[in-house]
C-alpha cells in the first residue's frame, strides 16, 4: 500500500482517504503484535525526538502517545503546561518555535482551541499530530475506534453505528463521523437536542433526538462522555434525568443487535451516560480501545515519521 502520510501532519480525518485509513489499520495490527510481545522496543524511530505538548489534562491519550513513541524507539518528552513558560503568557507560536529550535521531529499536541493543530502545522516545520483540538477533531481516537470495530466485526462498511451523548462538544464524535462515513458505515447520532449540533447535515449521517431510534439494530454503540459542567450551563436539568432518558443501560441496549459492540472514549461517568454493568460486559470493547490506542498511535508515528518502512 502506498503511504501518503509520510512527512505529513495529522490534523483531522477530513484529509484522510479510505486507503490512508486502511493503511493505518493494517500498520496498527502489526504494532498490536509488538505491544503484546515480551520485548516492546523497536528501532523504527531510533534517534527521533517527539514532544507531547498538552494544553489540556489527559491521561490516556498522552500516555498512549508517549508509550507509542517509546515502543518505536523515539525519545519522547512531555511538557507539563502547568509548570512551563506557557503559564507566563508565551504565545502558542513562540512555544512551538522554541520546541522546534530544540530539534524535535514531531509535536503531539492537545489544545482547547479548535484549529490549534492546523495553526501549529503552518507555523513550524516538525510534523504535528493532533491529539485533540477543542471540539474539532481527535483523529487518533477515530482511527482506534475503527480499528477496534474492524477487529471485532471483521468489516466496517455497512455497519450501523450509534454515537450517543454530547455530540455538540465532542471532537471524538466529529472525527468518528468523518472516519466512519468514509469507510461506508451508517452513522446515527443521538442525544438531547441541546447537545446536538444544529445544521449537522452530512451524507451517511442521521441525527436523532431520541436515543432508542439511534441504537435500534445498531452493530456498534459509542457512548460519549457527558461533562458535568454541561448541566451547569443549562444544557440538561440534572444528571439523574439525563441518565434516565439518555443514559445507556442494559435495557436500552437490548434494542441493538445481540452482538452489539460498546465503545466509550473515556473517562466514563458511571451511572450518567453509561451504567456500570455495561463497562465490563462481554459486549464492551472499552478496554480493548485503550490497547488499540497505543497500536494506532504507533502506526501514525511510524507512517508519518518513518514512512512505515
Amino acid at each position, binding site marked *: 500500500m502506498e503511504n501518503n502520510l509520510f512527512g505529513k501532519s495529522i490534523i483531522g480525518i477530513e484529509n484522510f482517504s479510505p486507503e490512508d485509513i486502511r493503511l493505518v489499520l493494517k500498520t496498527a495490527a502489526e504494532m498490536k503484535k509488538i505491544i503484546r510481545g515480551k520485548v516492546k522496543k523497536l528501532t523504527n524511530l531510533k534517534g527521533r525526538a517527539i514532544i507531547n505538548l498538552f494544553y489540556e489534562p489527559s491521561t490516556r491519550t498522552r500516555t498512549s502517545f508517549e508509550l507509542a513513541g517509546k515502543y518505536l524507539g523515539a525519545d519522547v518528552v512531555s511538557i507539563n503546561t502547568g509548570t512551563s513558560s506557557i503559564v507566563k503568557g508565551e*504565545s*502558542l*507560536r513562540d512555544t512551538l518555535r522554541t520546541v522546534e529550535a530544540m530539534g524535535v521531529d514531531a509535536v503531539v499536541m492537545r*489544545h*482547547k*482551541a*479548535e*484549529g*490549534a493543530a*492546523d*495553526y501549529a*502545522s*503552518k507555523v513550524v516545520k516538525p510534523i504535528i499530530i493532533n491529539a485533540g483540538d*477543542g*471540539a*474539532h*477533531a481527535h483523529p487518533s481516537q477515530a482511527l482506534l475506534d475503527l480499528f477496534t470495530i474492524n477487529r471485532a466485526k471483521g468489516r466496517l462498511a455497512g455497519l450501523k453505528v450509534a454515537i450517543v451523548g454530547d455530540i455538540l*462538544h465532542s*471532537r471524538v464524535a*466529529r472525527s468518528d463521523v468523518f472516519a466512519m462515513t468514509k469507510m461506508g458505515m451508517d452513522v446515527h447520532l443521538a442525544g438531547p437536542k441541546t447537545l446536538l*449540533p*444544529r*445544521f*449537522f*447535515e*452530512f451524507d451517511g449521517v442521521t441525527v436523532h433526538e431520541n436515543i432508542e431510534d439511534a441504537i435500534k439494530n445498531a452493530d456498534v454503540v459509542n457512548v460519549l462522555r457527558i461533562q458535568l459542567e454541561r448541566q451547569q450551563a443549562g444544557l440538561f436539568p440534572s444528571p439523574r434525568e439525563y441518565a434516565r432518558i439518555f443514559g445507556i443501560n442494559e435495557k436500552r441496549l437490548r434494542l441493538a443487535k445481540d452482538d452489539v459492540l460498546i465503545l466509550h472514549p473515556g473517562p466514563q461517568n458511571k451511572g450518567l451516560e453509561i451504567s456500570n454493568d455495561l463497562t465490563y460486559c462481554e459486549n464492551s470493547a472499552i478496554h480493548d480501545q485503550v490497547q488499540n490506542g497505543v497500536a494506532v498511535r504507533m502506526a501514525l508515528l511510524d507512517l508519518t515519521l518513518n514512512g512505515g518502512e
Partner: protein
Amino acid sequence: MNGKNWQIQRAEATIHGATIIRGGRVIDPANNIDKVADILIIDGKIAAVEQDIKFEPHYSFNAVGKIVTPGLIDMHVHFREPGQEAKEDFVSGSKAAVAGGFTTVATMPNTSPAVDNSALVRSMVSRAKEVGIINIKIIGALTKNRKGEELAELRDMISAGVVAFSDDGNFDSNARIFMNALDYLHDTGKVVICHEEETSLVKDGVMNEGKRSAMLGLKGRPTVAEDIAVARDVLLAEYTGGHVHIAHISSGRSVDIVRQAKKRGVKVTAEVTPQHLTMTDDLVNPADTSTKINPPLRSKKDVEEVLAGLLDGTIDMIVTDHSPHAPEEKDREYIYAPSGFPGLETSLGILLTDLYHENKIDLNTLIAKMTCNPAKIFGLNAGTLTVGTPADITVIDPSLEWTVEEKNFYTRGSHSPFVGRKLKGRAVATIVGGNLMKLL
C-alpha cells in the same frame, strides 16, 4: 513607509488657491449628477462643477477615464485612540482612509477608556483637528463605560461635538436603559447606532452557527441572536419615536425586519460592510483568524438577502467596520484572537470588483451608499459636490487592477481576509478640503 507599492503623495499647493479636476465622469447622487465635467476647487471649497471650465489654475488633475465622486464617508471605524495605539491611531487610521478614498470617518468609542464623557470627546475632537489629514467625527458611548447600566452624559457629549452614539461591540441587553436613551435623545435628533447580537446567545461564539461551525466544532453565533436584537430595537424605536441605526447588519431575517419597519414609518436605518456583502462562513478556517468578525460571516442565503436589502433601499449605507488589531494579537488560536480586521483600504476595491463589475449594483447606487446617504442620516456637511461645500472628493479608477498586499497597508492592523485578492478598481486621488493627495 518604504517598500510600499502605493504611496500617498500630496499634490503641490492644493490647499490654497485653485485646483481643477478635469474631464472625469462626475457622479454626485445627491444632486442627480452623472456626467463628464470639470470640478473647480477654490480655497478648499467646490467652486464649480461644469463642462469645459476655461479657467486654468496652477494645479490641474487629469481625471479623464476616471470617476469623480463626493469624498467617501465611513461611519464605522475603530481608530483605537485613546489607549490602544498599538492597533491604530488617528494618523495611521487617517492614512488608511486616504488610501481607500475616504475623506470622512466616524470613530467608535470602544476605546480604553471608552469615549463616554465630554472631556474625552473634546480631546478627541481637538486631536482630530490636530491630525487634520481627513475629517474625523467622534461617536460617543451610549452608556457609562459601555456597560449598558447607566446612561452616559449624552447631552454634554453633544455639546462637545459627538456625531452619534453607540455602545458598538456590545449589545445593550437592558431594554429599559436602551429605551431611556432613545427617549432622552428624542428631541436632539442624534442617532443611536446599535450592535445587534443578543448577548446570551453569542457568548463564547466565534463564527456563524451553521453547517460549517457544526463541522469545525467552533461555537456558533446564530443569526437569531441578531434578529432578536434588531427586532427589539426596531420595536423600541417605533414605540419611542427614536432613531435607531442598525450597525453592520448581516442576517437576511434582520434585513426583512428593518424592511417591514421602514414600511410602517419607523425611524430605523441600517448599514452593511463589504465583508458581509461578499463573504460567507464557508471561508472560515480556524487556522486563520482573519475571518473572525462580529457579527460573523453568514451563509450564502444571508449574503444574498443582505445584498437585496442594499439594493431595495432597506440598507441605507455601506461602512467598513475598520477594526485593526496588532499583528501579534491576531496571530494566534482562532478562539482567542480578537474580532475584526482593517477594512478602509480594501472596501472600495472589493465593492467595485465583487458587486459593480459583477453587475450586481450600479455606480450611482453604490456611491450614494458611501456618500450622501450617511451624510443625510447623520447630518454631516459632506457627501455631495454642491457648490460652496467643502471640497472632499474621491477620484476612482474603476478598471485599475491591483492586488491586496499587507505591506502596502497604511493601517497598523493586519490579517485582512482580502489579502491576496486581485481587485479591479480603486481610489487614485483623495481630496480633503481641497488638499489633493495622489495615490501612486
